[in-house]
């Protein structure tokens, strides 16, 4: 198998007892990821008996609990975001006639490719706004991956949002950002992000920061953006941590502070380890859009083999360092120099 040979360890004596293969490595990685999720789950359920109670009720067939658990998976709220798992719980609730669950399944299924497909960059072509006018790569938090509802659906979300449902507020704001129908949809999005952000919703805090940083629906204000990024980052929201890293690295809205940037970057790595690969695509897109800082970050992750499920690769590392170096990033230039120095034949 060609896969086998790529990772196989060569050994002249033969008689190998362990050959590393990509497919088996992936199977092992899958177990590790699931085990990490299990641990996170048991940690959060032992911390929080409500969570365990909710799960218990859901497992016993309580439709409302099933819906709530499904929506937790849907939003990645307190658990690792998992659409398959969300659909499973929604389906159980829907089977018992729960309308909200039926409605959410439809939302998920109406655009199945988006939800269940590979996390390819094509998938994100639907969200060009997040990167198109991103002058230095602050990231939008795509915590929600559902298609726009029709007018009736919007109305339902608006009602729930008006009644103070944080999730509905965030979702509604998210719909406004994506919808082109109303001229002041950015302002409406900011309004609802603000509502749910004030109530502590991390994804909304991050997205409010994004809107502020880009002056969308609100006058541009880097300092305010950084404050919101920080609040979300303190809740371990990955895109927010990335944004704060960038803010410190570039001195946008905060005093430029490389050691703070580095601290947040370390935090990012920890979170990344805990949540897996899904986020990688965002950084790659930002890097492809020419963000030198993200390029350097990717370079160093590849260099140190810190990317989830991906073996260390000097070549990938050199590629990203190369792009950043080209833009004058001194750190990347240095690293690239090291790489070529190492690559040179010794004799």
């Amino acid at each position, binding site marked *: 198998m060609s896969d086998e040979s790529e990772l196989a360890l060569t050994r002249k004596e033969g008689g*190998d007892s362990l050959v590393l293969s990509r497919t*088996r*490595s992936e199977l092992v990685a899958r*177990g590790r990821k699931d085990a990490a999720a299990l641990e996170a789950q048991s940690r959060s359920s032992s911390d929080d008996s409500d969570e365990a109670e909710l799960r218990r009720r859901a497992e016993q067939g309580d439709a409302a609990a099933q819906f709530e658990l499904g929506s937790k998976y849907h939003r990645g709220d307190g658990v690792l975001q998992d659409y398959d798992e969300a659909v499973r719980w929604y389906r159980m609730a829907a089977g018992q006639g729960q309308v909200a669950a039926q409605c959410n399944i439809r939302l998920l299924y109406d655009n199945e490719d988006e939800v269940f*497909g590979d996390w390819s960059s094509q998938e994100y072509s639907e969200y060009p706004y997040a990167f198109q006018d991103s002058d230095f790569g602050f990231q939008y938090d795509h915590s929600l991956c559902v298609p726009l509802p029709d007018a009736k659906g919007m109305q339902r979300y608006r009602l729930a949002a008006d009644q103070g449902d944080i999730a509905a507020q965030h979702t509604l704001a998210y719909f406004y950002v994506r919808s082109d129908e109303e001229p002041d949809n950015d302002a409406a999005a900011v309004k609802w992000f603000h509502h749910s952000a004030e109530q502590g919703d991390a994804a909304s805090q991050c997205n409010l920061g994004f809107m502020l940083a880009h002056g969308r629906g609100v006058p541009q204000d880097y300092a305010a953006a950084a404050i919101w990024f920080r609040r979300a980052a303190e809740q371990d929201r990955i895109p927010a941590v990335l944004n704060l890293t960038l803010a410190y690295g570039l001195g946008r809205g905060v005093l430029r502070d490389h050691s703070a940037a580095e601290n947040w970057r370390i935090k990012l790595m920890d979170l990344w380890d805990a949540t897996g690969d899904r986020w990688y695509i965002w950084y790659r897109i930002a890097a492809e859009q020419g963000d030198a800082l993200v390029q350097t970050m990717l370079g160093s992750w590849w260099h140190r083999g810190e990317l989830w*499920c991906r073996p260390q690769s000097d070549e990938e590392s050199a590629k990203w360092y190369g792009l950043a170096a080209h833009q004058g990033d001194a750190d990347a230039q240095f690293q690239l120099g090291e790489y070529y120095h190492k690559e040179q034949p010794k004799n």
Partner: protein
Amino acid sequence: MSRHITHRLKPEEEELERKRAELAAIKAIVVDRELELTDRRNELAALEGSYLRQVGVLYAELDEWTAKILDLKARLRPSASAQHRADTAHEQARQTYESSHGEEAKAKDFNPSPDLKKLFREAARRVHPDFAADPADLERRTRLMADLNRAYREEDEDALQRILDEYDEPGDTDTGTGAALVRIIRQISHAKERIAAIGRELETLLKSEIAQLKREVDEAQQKGCDMLAELAASVRAKIQVAEKEYSLLSQELGSR
């Protein structure tokens, strides 16, 4: 006889003595490193075996269910993308099955006794290919080293002993001090290369997924948890949910 006693070593002979001492020292290092490498490999292979048997097979089952569920979905809501997803899931299920039911899944536990380790060291010192005298000897040693690794992996003390008994080091065929020096210098150089290669190999090994899994399993064990058993239980639960979902979908399809 007395002539020998008063005999003083020539400079090249002194050098030869020094190189012999160096060779002996480096031999011990090579053997140590070989043992370390083979121990790591065997430990990881053993863990991989039990992971595949305990968890891998369940993933294969889960993937099978997922593929079947996607089949039903494709029939309920036919579309090119639904079909594509089902096909992809079948391919994934096939891969998972192959990965978890291959030879690697049969790897046994590995707990070599101190005696066995000692025997490995002795045998490796004797047959290591880096210390071959000539091409024919190299070929023989290479084969024996492979046998040795295999016997050690299977904790087969008799086989190890047989290798030790079987192999006679060829006598000194060197025709003079110069030739002996050249041979030893080459052997030392091979040994150094091998030590470096083992280092790289260990580094690759320790970065592998299975090595990371091992660390996590060990950590969990220290806390009194059986990580693989817990993982297996959670996959089993997922299988149950999948079965339920499958039957719901079947009903839905049947009621059409």
